[in-house]
């Protein structure tokens, strides 16, 4: 098989699936869901073919998509090492989540729309992965945003989902605004947006890159990966179905921001990288505090995602893109696992999402509880689980290169353990605190199967040598760098200390809780501060309600008053007034009319006499 045929099939398969679903199976949800799952299976097959067929070589293929004046845009593919990694993550996790969705969405009324949306997502995500130029990435970037919009709005009859979907799209657009400008500036400074050519060009003339350019390009990443200050959309996006959260808002799409950074890492100057370091570390800490006080199981996971994305960003900022990708991969496993676990819980508890309404689920849902615990341990960095390797690599790098960032990240690590164990204890331990929790029971194999698979990956995913070389190739250089760093032992101690402290504190605090949050009772001020999320939602609300909408109304008033009013109506009014004056001359009396003749004659004669200066 020709490689480009495979690539095209890979790209078009989900697109066609979505199209067919839209056109034919709108009312036939079951067929649509099966089609979609089959599609994701197909994607997995094609992806694996691509990963293993290429003999670790870079595959690229190109055709002209658009030619306008001196701007020529290629439609092309670039399948190199990072692309293979992401392709694996996307297709594998995607496949599992498709299967999970079969169970989770079994009795949903709009299955066709849901699975169609998933197919659109797969299409655009694969597009980002294999695109070979920035404009193409931007195209799929926007399409990913669109599918995210579509899936968040799945339960569009609820006000929450309607608002959340809108918010997600618009906030992403704000990021894209910068990204777009970045692309335009890149084009006019470098003359190309093709990644390979760009890399060569930067290599040849490093003065092309500049801080401003880097920051502009980074805007796209900030929006999509929900980094400060555009992080507000992600928690709200949890209004969508849980598998969607797992796939899009945890494992793949938000990680695409990191992937973008990795793809264009040659475009960033030292300053930009430093900025990323601080940005990521801050995000890790901030999201940790926010997660600590959430009651909604999905929101906790969402903030945890934010925090882990912060780690990846920090890793990238510290100059270790491989490590960032590594964490991306492991995070995809355990975060998808936990989201799916939470989905399983939610599904079992009749869409109850408040963790304080759960309790004691371990006995009722043993598989879910166990796999969830694996996820918790992995993310907390328990030794020799997948999260341990990637996270400790980040911490070690920070420890050796940048102490302040390390300190922030380390506090974040303790917090991670704390809130993850909090989630586990409140949900699965103790007594059932509500009707729905007490009547919960384990879900079917369609849902537990992916959980188990992901749990296994979460345990062993950190051993990069277990993976085929074709997948983990991009990680190796940086992993070797980290392996060569000093202070390994010290880091093991510190890491262990972090998760142990977090776990024990959580056990003490949350081991036996009622309907109320014990932290709120003990330190109300701290709790309130965390709950406020540093007032970002309020600031955005304030912006929309007090700045944007009044501004729009102000412009509308200006339009009515000055343009439509003063300019148009005003000139019409002046004309009307003059018309009335003109009309008023017609009084019908001969002697008043004769004044016109006198005046005219005087005027003419005066003109002849040169009174007007001719």
């Amino acid at each position: 098989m020709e490689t480009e045929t495979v690539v095209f099939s890979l790209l078009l398969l989900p697109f066609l699936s979505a199209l067919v679903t839209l056109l034919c199976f709108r009312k036939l949800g079951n067929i649509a869901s099966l089609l979609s799952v089959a599609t994701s299976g197909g994607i997995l097959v094609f992806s694996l073919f691509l990963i293993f067929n290429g003999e670790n070589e870079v595959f690229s293929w190109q055709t002209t998509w658009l030619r306008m004046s001196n701007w020529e845009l290629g439609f092309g593919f670039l399948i190199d090492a990072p692309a293979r990694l992401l392709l694996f993550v996307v297709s594998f996790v995607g496949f599992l989540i498709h299967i999970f969705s079969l169970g989770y969405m079994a009795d949903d009324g709009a299955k066709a729309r849901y699975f169609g949306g998933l197919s659109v997502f797969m299409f655009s995500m694969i597009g980002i992965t294999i695109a070979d130029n920035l404009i193409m990435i931007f195209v799929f970037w926007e399409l990913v945003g669109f599918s995210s919009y579509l899936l968040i709005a799945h339960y569009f009859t609820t006000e929450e989902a309607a608002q959340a979907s809108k918010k997600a799209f618009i906030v992403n657009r704000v990021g894209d605004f910068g990204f777009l400008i970045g692309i335009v500036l890149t084009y006019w400074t470098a003359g190309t947006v093709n990644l390979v050519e760009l890399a060569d060009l930067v290599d040849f003339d490093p003065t092309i890159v500049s801080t401003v350019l880097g920051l502009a390009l980074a805007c796209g990443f900030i929006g999509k990966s929900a980094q400060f200050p555009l992080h507000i959309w992600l928690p709200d996006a949890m209004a969508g179905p849980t598998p969607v959260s797992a796939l899009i808002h945890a494992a793949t799409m938000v990680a695409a921001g990191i992937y973008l950074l990795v793809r264009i890492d040659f475009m960033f100057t030292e300053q930009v990288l430093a900025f990323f370091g601080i940005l990521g570390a801050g995000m890790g800490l901030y999201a940790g505090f926010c997660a600590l006080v959430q009651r909604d199981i999905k929101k906790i996971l969402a903030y945890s995602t934010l925090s882990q994305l912060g780690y990846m960003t920090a890793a990238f900022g510290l100059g270790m893109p491989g490590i960032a990708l590594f964490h991306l991969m492991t995070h995809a496993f355990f975060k998808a696992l936990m989201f799916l676990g939470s989905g399983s819980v939610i599904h079992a508890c009749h869409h109850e999402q408040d963790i304080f309404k759960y309790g004691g689920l371990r006995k009722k849902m043993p598989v879910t509880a166990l796999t969830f615990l694996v996820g918790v341990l992995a993310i907390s960095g328990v030794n020799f689980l997948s999260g341990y390797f990637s996270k400790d690599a980040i911490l070690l790098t920070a420890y050796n290169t940048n102490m302040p960032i390390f300190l922030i990240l380390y506090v974040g690590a303790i917090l991670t353990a704390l809130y993850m164990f909090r989630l586990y204890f409140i949900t699965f331990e103790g007594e059932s605190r509500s009707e729905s929790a007490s009547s919960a029971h384990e879900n079917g194999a369609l849902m537990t199967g992916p959980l188990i698979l992901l749990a296994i990956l979460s345990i062993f995913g950190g051993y990069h040598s277990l993976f085929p070389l074709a997948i983990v190739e991009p990680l190796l250089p940086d992993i070797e760098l980290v392996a060569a760093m000093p202070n390994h032992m010290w880091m093991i101690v510190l890491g262990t200390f972090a998760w142990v402290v977090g776990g024990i504190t959580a056990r003490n605090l949350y081991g036996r809780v009622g309907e109320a949050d014990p932290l709120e009772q003990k330190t109300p001020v701290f709790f309130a501060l965390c709950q406020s999320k540093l007032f970002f939602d309020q600031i955005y609300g304030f912006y929309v309600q007090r700045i944007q909408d009044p501004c729009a109304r102000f412009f509308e008033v200006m339009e009515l008053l000055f343009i439509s009013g003063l300019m148009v109506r005003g000139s019409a009014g002046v004309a009307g007034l003059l018309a009335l004056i003109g009309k008023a001359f017609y009084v019908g009396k001969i002697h008043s009319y004769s004044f016109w003749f006198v005046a005219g004659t005087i005027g003419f004669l005066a003109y002849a006499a040169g009174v007007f200066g001719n």
Partner: protein
Amino acid sequence: MTTDQILLLGSIAVPAFVSIILFSGLGRSESFVKNLALVGFGFPFIAGIVLFLNFDGSKGGYCFEIFHPRMGLQELKITFHLGLNGVSSPLFAMAGVVGLAAGLTAIHSGADRLRLFLALLLTMQAGLMGLFASVDLFFYYLFHEFALIPTFIMIGLWGGRDRRSIALEITIYLTLGALISLGGLVALNVMVDAEKFDFPSLSSALSQFALAESTQFKIFGLLLFGFGILVALFPFHTWAAKGYECAPTSVSMLHAGVLKKFGLYGLIQIAAPLLPEGALAWSPYLLWLALGNIIFVGAVAIAQKNLKSMVGYGSVMHMGYCFLGIAVCSSLGAGSGVMLMVAHGLSVSLMFLLSTYVYKRSGTFEMDEMGGLGTKTPILACFFVAASLATIGLPGFGNFWGEFGVFLSLGQNPDHHFFLYLAALGIIISAIFGLRAVARIFYGGSSDELLEHEKKNPITDLSFSEILPAGVILSALLFLGLWPRGISDRIDQEINSRYSQLSSEQSMSLPPCCLLDKGDLENNQSLSIPLEKIPSSKPSAEK
């Protein structure tokens, strides 16, 4: 005469002829009228598509030319000259597509005095096809007027609230615009000593005796403001939203979608290439005005609560991008402007069509009185979401390429970067009002008013006759979005030759990669000259 020429002439003559038949009152039965009208709208559609596909731009210039020197005022060197070139053929096809959709909508609209309505609409269609097919500038203007005047009558007869006063206001406003642009065209006619009053003759005459810069400045100014009023350039845009809100759907579709492109077409195809120095001199002012369209009108669109006026303001807002494309005075900007014109014509007419569908179901255009329609009318919701996203420039729809190209062209000149930053804000603004509308109409729960309305009028999803026009337009939009080369190659060929004068002045700011051979990059060791020393005058076009 070849088949293609017959198609070209027929696309004007058939609707005109059908409209005369309808005016004259032949044939009583309603089905006869409807079928005849369908023929009248179908022929331009087919002609548009066929000619679009048959168009061969490799020779450059005009194809399918029909020339008749004795028709027209000899005195003013006016001749009857039809033909299509790379810029007009996509627009011509677009006019056919939108015309068919508008025609289908009108045929099924159930308006009273349907015969008259269809006759007027067909007159408009004939004018629109003629407009883009004219090579002669006078006939270009004349056809525009043929399309414009039925608009006033149709707004006056079948419009919504305040139709009489709005019809009057629009008429005066647009007549002023048309007169000013006529003044500009006359100035061109008088000042240029050309053999004929069409673009090729004018440009060959100008290439020998160029006009003085001050003259160019004046004439371009006349054309700019005349056309600007017709295209709703800020601050002359107030008629647009008001008029579209009031006009019957098919009229809004044809006017906002196609007729409004008249002015932009004139600026891109005629004014800027013929008066390059004038265009350059006006460019700074035009940039600001276009920004006014994008930011100011965009903000006004956010504040709208009425769906149709929101769509109206939105369409005005997007016109700003086309103006930006013109203002940058480069072939990239102009070409992207044309692409955006085509896509915008399709998307905005789709939006008007869909908002009327919404109105039919909800009985109101007030967005606060809707909500939750998505569960009741999923197909409509699907179309509406697609149309909104197309309007706000989502990739996959044609609008994206146009907008992106305009942004790209703004990046070319560092002086324009400021405008790039502000203009790009438009993608956020349009997302805000577009998605807000979707959320208000289709998401959430139904409002009390809607429930009340539903009791009397049960809400049904789109019927086949409603899907058909929307589907035609949407598929055209998708075609543009997925395969932009389909039109960009034609536009590019034509625009590049037209804008050669303008772009030669700007080759200085070409990016380094365009100045380098790709081969040099690969073995960059052999390249010893520093970048700065590469002569900047090396043209980029010779690829």
